[in-house]
């Protein structure tokens, strides 16, 4: 039987183009991944055949649309091994998912004297919502340190930091800047011992490796569709049922109430309680399709593929003069992040674009971490299922040309 890996690049129509006269080398997957034909087709088919507003509809299209939407919820729940579809709330993406937890759970449960434990490697999306809820509730923030350029969490400091005052521990699964894969199951187990609720930012892991929320043992897990071969504007929050049912709504309005009077209202249970207004059902259907696509490739195999490319790129780039690579030298997620001593990341990215290579340069929404490492910006190359070894050759050659232009011969 032919493997879907055999013609993987043909599945992604966008890859077949020239940029600045060169074949596109797309290495900005940590920002957003490209979309396969099956996902684009699922969205197209939904709008062409099934579109109608979901829930309460008594006509055929509305019932069909509702079935597709709730089918997508069940598909996403199975994808992360949640106990029930009701544990999956559709959101706009990781940022909205974390805002939902911070605002709803945090607002109802945090008090003065409580501690919110984060790590120094958090993306702004898993940092700023906690800052705001800390200001609102009087809780304080505490950060688990990163060891330095190798970019690991300092687990030796965890016992000291994970005191009974810690009510919530929020951390990323894979760092979008360092490529570090954190030991999430261990972190959850240790948090549980002090009774802290755990929140995982899975934006960089969801499309790249198997994820089983019950094996990990987390309370909440947030992710975006567009970083897992699906469309923009859709993502999800997983939450344990018992926690969700005790949480107040995040936004209020239609679709989430069981009864409304002029002066008070009653809420539906999860997931409807957290999905006020017409939900983004069409994009949810596309998210379900991307789950099918990724499982057809095999998520363990995706993890190996992306990790192998990232390690190969790391080793090749390490030969370049004046380069500083950050993140672990061994096992890492599918990205490399680096800075040159005398060429700024934005100049590097501009030169790479000239070679048809899409990279990202900047602080990657990780300003506190950058400051901690004494950097203002890095260049990031991030890989996905369609990237190939030859694209690492192109990347390295482009870096050599750039260094030569700025007078730093390789």
């Amino acid at each position: 039987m032919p493997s879907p890996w055999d013609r993987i690049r043909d599945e992604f129509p966008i890859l077949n183009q020239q940029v600045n006269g060169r074949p596109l080398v797309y290495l900005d997957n940590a920002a957003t991944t490209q979309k396969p034909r099956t996902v684009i087709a699922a969205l197209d088919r939904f709008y062409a055949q099934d579109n109608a507003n979901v829930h309460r509809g008594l006509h055929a299209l509305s019932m069909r649309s509702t079935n597709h939407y709730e089918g997508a919820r069940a598909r996403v729940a199975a994808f992360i091994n949640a106990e029930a579809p009701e544990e999956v709330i559709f959101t706009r993406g990781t940022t909205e998912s974390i805002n939902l937890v911070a605002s709803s759970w945090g607002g109802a449960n945090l008090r003065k004297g409580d501690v919110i434990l984060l790590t120094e490697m958090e993306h702004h999306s898993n940092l700023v919502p906690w800052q705001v809820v800390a200001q609102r509730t009087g809780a304080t923030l505490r950060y688990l340190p990163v060891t330095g350029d190798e970019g690991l969490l300092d687990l030796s400091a965890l016992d000291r930091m994970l005191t009974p005052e810690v009510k919530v521990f929020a951390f990323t699964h894979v760092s979008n800047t360092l490529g570090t894969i954190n030991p999430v199951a261990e972190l959850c187990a240790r948090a549980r011992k002090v009774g802290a609720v755990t929140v995982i930012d899975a934006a960089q892991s969801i499309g790249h490796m198997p994820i089983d929320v019950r094996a990990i043992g987390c309370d909440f897990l947030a992710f975006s569709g567009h970083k897992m071969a699906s469309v923009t504007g859709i993502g999800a929050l997983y939450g344990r049922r018992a926690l969700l049912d005790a949480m107040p709504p995040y936004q209020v309005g239609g679709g989430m109430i069981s009864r409304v009077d002029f002066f008070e209202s009653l809420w539906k249970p999860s997931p409807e309680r957290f999905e006020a207004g017409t939900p983004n059902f069409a994009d949810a259907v596309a998210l379900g399709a991307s789950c099918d696509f990724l499982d057809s490739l095999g998520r363990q195999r995706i993890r190996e593929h992306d990790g192998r490319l990232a390690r190969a790129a790391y080793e090749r780039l390490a030969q370049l003069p004046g380069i500083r690579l950050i993140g672990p030298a061994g096992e890492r997620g599918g990205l490399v992040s680096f800075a040159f001593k005398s060429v700024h990341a934005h100049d590097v990215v501009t030169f790479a674009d000239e070679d048809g290579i899409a990279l990202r340069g900047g602080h990657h929404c990780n300003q506190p971490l950058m400051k901690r490492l004494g950097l203002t910006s890095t260049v990031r190359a991030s890989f996905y299922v369609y990237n190939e070894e030859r694209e690492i050759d192109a990347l390295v050659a482009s870096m050599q040309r750039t260094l030569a232009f700025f007078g730093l011969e390789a």
Partner: protein
Amino acid sequence: MSAELSDLYQNVILDHNRRPRNRGRIPSANRSAHGDNPSCGDQCDVFLRLDGDRIAEISFEGSGCAISQASASLMTTQLKGKTAAEAEKLYGQFHEIVTTGKEPEDMSDLGAFAGVHAFPARIKCATLSWHAALNALRGDPVPATTESHLD
């Protein structure tokens, strides 16, 4: 290398990036302002010693790409000795150059930034230090940012 890219990275720019002029703090500065480019994290501090309405001394500190560093360096050489009104006028001309690529004949080295207009994402790199300098001149206590309609 494409014509656009070699227009962007002209020798004047590379030279100022490699050997920035007027870098560091002026001990006698009586005005300063900080600028941020939130989209890339670039930062720039500009220090001025105003003598009446005239810029007697000017320097900068900061980190950023070749375009931003060269622009800050070149700006200091152009603004020294200018009045606040002359500086505002010069910025207007510089802004015209980086956004349209049209280079007035008497623009000296600032004309080297005409190539920026072909790279819209880099215009903010070129204007960051100017925003900071003008804020320092105006005595504006709010840090300059490239995220404004004035870009």
